[in-house]
Each structure stands twice: as structure tokens, then as C-alpha cells.
């Protein structure tokens, strides 16, 4: 049986005349962290939005555990096992942190007391428990990133899409985030990770894809991609 969790096949997304994602194919295996790098405007976030259903792709297919999820809605994809965070943190700003973490659990049959206990436990794991009665909007940017990660953990997805998880996060919060990601990988969760922080992405990724102008221009192990002249040219120019 295949251990491929996510399979993207020839995915294309156009905005009018602009081809933001152009025939991209990639795969993420069970327990693997796959990094996706590229300069601004390369199409990384658009690709993520197509994978989790926020955007409808124009062509190609997205498969989760071999099931076609291309035309499913974001909430169906979430319940099928894909969680995500956003480039700019999108917490539920006028809900307290416990309620923020309860949102992904609302569809379950668990009792309200159980949901609260699980949400509190989730906050403890990322060091935000003391702030549990604060609203999302009262957190710093880095704390909001942590809250988003905790929220996605609550969903218990098989695949987690992380969009710039380390951007604007101070080193101590970054450490907590890295610990959580590694812990989840040890629990066989899979990741598609987009980041400008090349140090973190090189450290975490098992496999790397490089996106440029909507196309994959290189892929492979970190050390291979790091030294690929095409990648160096895309990042640094001639």
C-alpha cells in the first residue's frame, strides 16, 4: 500500500491572464516534511490555497490518501484530514483562546467539558494557557502564529500545510513551534511547509521543491537543491 498522503498532479491556477500555478506536481509521504520554497510571487500560497480548497484549480488534480479532493470545499477537505495555517495569522480575534481552539472540534461528538479540556491542553502545549481567557486580537503576532499551530493540531489532520510559520516570530516562540512540528512528525503527521526562513526549512525538510513563476524548477534532498545552479539563479539572479 502506498504511503503517499498528498499527491498533486499537474495543478494549474490562473487569475485572468496570469498563470499563478502552472502544471505543478508534487507529493508528500506519511511522516514527511516537504518544504516548498521560492521567491515572492512564485505561487507558493496559491498552491496551498488550491490544496485546501480555498481556490478552485483550473486544471490538474489533488489527491489525499488516493482520494480525489480537487473539487471539495475547504471544510470538507479539513474534515478529510488537511489542516493549515496562514501566512498572516488568522485567529478568531474576538473569541477567547479556548474557543479559538474549540472551533476545529465543534463537529465531534465529544462533550463540551471534553472539548474545553482538550483546548486547554492544546494551549498548555504551546505555552499560551495563561492567556486562555484573552481574545485572539490581544496576542502578539508571534503568539497568534503559535495559536494557529495549536488550532490546527486540534483538528488532528494527517497533513498540515504551514504557510510561513516562522515569519515575524521571536526566537523563543520559534523554538516552541519547531518542537511542536518535530513532535508531530514523530507522530507520523505529514507537512507541506512554505517558508522564507531557509535555515528552518533546510533543517526541517526531508524533501524540497523549488517554485518559480508558478513552476517547479527543482526538487530533491535539501543538499541537492541547495547547490542546484537553477535554484541559485532563481534566488540570486545571474
Amino acid at each position: 500500500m502506498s504511503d503517499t498522503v498528498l499527491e498533486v498532479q499537474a495543478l494549474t491556477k490562473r487569475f485572468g491572464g496570469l498563470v499563478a500555478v502552472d502544471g505543478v506536481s508534487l507529493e508528500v509521504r506519511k511522516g514527511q516534511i516537504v518544504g516548498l520554497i521560492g521567491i515572492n510571487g512564485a505561487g507558493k500560497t496559491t498552491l496551498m490555497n488550491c490544496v485546501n480548497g480555498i481556490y478552485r484549480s483550473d486544471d490538474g488534480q489533488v489527491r489525499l490518501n488516493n482520494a480525489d479532493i480537487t473539487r471539495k470545499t475547504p471544510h470538507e477537505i479539513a474534515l478529510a484530514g488537511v489542516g493549515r495555517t496562514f501566512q498572516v495569522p488568522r485567529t478568531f480575534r474576538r473569541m477567547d483562546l479556548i474557543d479559538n481552539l474549540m472551533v476545529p472540534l465543534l463537529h465531534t461528538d465529544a462533550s463540551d467539558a471534553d472539548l474545553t479540556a482538550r483546548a486547554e491542553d492544546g494551549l498548555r502545549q504551546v505555552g499560551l494557557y495563561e492567556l486562555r481567557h484573552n481574545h485572539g486580537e490581544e496576542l502578539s503576532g508571534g503568539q497568534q502564529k503559535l495559536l494557529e499551530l495549536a488550532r490546527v493540531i486540534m483538528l488532528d489532520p494527517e497533513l498540515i500545510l504551514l504557510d510561513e510559520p516562522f515569519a515575524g516570530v521571536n526566537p523563543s516562540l520559534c523554538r516552541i513551534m519547531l518542537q511542536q512540528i518535530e513532535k508531530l512528525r514523530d507522530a507520523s503527521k505529514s507537512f507541506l511547509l512554505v517558508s522564507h526562513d531557509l535555515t528552518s526549512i533546510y533543517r526541517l525538510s526531508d524533501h524540497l521543491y523549488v517554485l518559480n513563476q508558478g513552476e517547479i524548477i527543482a526538487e530533491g534532498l535539501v543538499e541537492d537543491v541547495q547547490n542546484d545552479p537553477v535554484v541559485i539563479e532563481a534566488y540570486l539572479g545571474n
Partner: protein
Amino acid sequence: MANVVTSSASSAGHWLRPDIVRQLIWYLLIVVLVFWCITAPSRDANLSLYFSFMMWITLASSLNFIAGFAGYMPFGFVAFYGLGAYGTGIAVKVLGLPIWLGVPCGAALGVAFALLVAPSLRLAGIYFAIVSLSLAIICQRVVALLPEWLTGGSLGINLGVVADREHGYYAMVLVLVGVLVTASWLARSRLGKALKAIRDDVEAADAMGIDVARSRLKAWLLAALFASLVGGVDAWFTGAFDTQTAFDVLVTAKTVIYAMAGGLGTALGPVVGAGVLVWVDDQIWRAFPVLNNFLLGLLIVVLILFAPRGIVGSLMQRFPRLRRYVM
């Protein structure tokens, strides 16, 4: 870094848990409010004022279901009120039903209209607000153009002897209890949490497994149900209405202002907003009948400027510990 909002839960006894205290306060408020309104006729109080008080609390609370919880501001909210009145009037005058059956018929008409225009919920922000306003105007025009034997033409519908101020008054007490119990349920329910998540960020809520379309439709139908019931009961109380009064855009404007003045997003906010402003409006009108609208307008401007989240919302922002005790 955020200032920590402290909790007293650990030191408090079980029965003093904030969620239990919150429910006790809320249900005590409902009991006092209902007792105060239900005994008004025996106290020879001004029934019209009390009726108006209950009507605006109910309308503001029902608007809160869709605007405060889900974040969709319907500028055409009056359509439900108007259809509730006309549905009731037609059921009584044309179908010959008793008025107590006519009111649910009016509510059914309002809810059916809400279902018909539910696709407009795919829009957001100002686009939804404007489409909603347009739909209400269309609704008014269509009702005005219907045959005279059905809707009474330009004279509207006069319920004649069927209208009954006393029974209409008590019917409004029932509708008030219904909306307050629904508001408290919604504030505590999973649907309420889902709606608040949608209000705060619809895409993030969707990505966290919330069925956005289904959740907001439920809030929309609940809002339509109570607004239509108010329209029907108001027809019962006053006995006469036409398309100008039943679809008056001022009904929407007042509902929005009362709900916002109290604070959208909590069950308590619209009750406080409508209660305070209806009372203040009455006091100003008694003291300065000529300057009534000017002074009320001035008060609303000051309120929005200094308490943009409404009375309850701003207090909760200023004193975060209150959040745990406010439904």
C-alpha cells in the same frame, strides 16, 4: 505581549463558576424583564411603550443572530417584519384563520422569503448589505403591486375587530421570551461558536472544518423567524398597516442602531441597547418633544464615537473579566 485576563475559577467554589454565574444572571434578567412586562397591564402602565420596548428588544436580538454572531449586516431586515405583518393579515382577512394561527403563517412567509434569498449570503460585507436592502425594496414593491383583494392596495390591511391590544401584548411577551431563550442557547451552543468564527474570519473557519453555508443559513433563518413573528404580532396589536409602514426602512435603521448601541455578538448587548434607547427616547420625547429626534441622534453619535463596540461590548473591552459573566 498580551496582558493576561485573569481567572477566578480555580479559587471559586463549584457553584460560583463563571459560566454558572453567567447563566444565573442571564436567566434572572429574563425573569425580571418578563415579570415587569407581563404585569404592566395590571399596573395601568403605558402599554404602547411596553409593547414598543419588547418589540425593539426582540428585533435587535434577532438581528444580532445574523449580524452580531455571524457578521452579516442585513440592511433589508425590515423585509421579514413586513412579510410577517402581511402574511398574518392575509391569513386572517383572506383565508379566514384566527389571528393566533395567522401570526405563525406570517412567520412562515418570512422564513420562506429568507430561504429564497439565502444565496445572497454568499456575498459579504457591504455587498451583502446593499443586496439585502435592494431585496427589501423589491419586496415592498411586489407586495404593493399585488391585487387589492389580497393585500389591500394602497390602503393596506385593516384587521378591524380581530386586532386586540391586550392579546397582542401578551403574544409579544411570548415572542420576547422565545428570542431571549434562543439568544442564550445560541451564545452557549456550538452553532454560536461556529458563527463567531465565521464572523471573525470566514476562510479560517472554513479551513477548520466549519460548514460555513449551513451555519450562517441557520442564523439567517432564526433571525428571519423572530423578525417575522414581531411583524405579525405588531399587526395583531395595532390592527392596521400598509406597505409604507410595514416595509419602512426606519425599522431596519432603528434595529441596527439599538443592537449596535448595546453591542453586537453577545446575547445581552441588544437587550441593553434597545432597552436603554427606547427608554431614553421616551424620556426625551416627554421633556423636549420638538427636539426629540435631534437629541436622540446626538446621543447615538456620542455613543458610537465613545463606545464603538456598544455599551456591553465596550465595558467588556475595558474590563475583560466581565467577559466571563456576560452571556
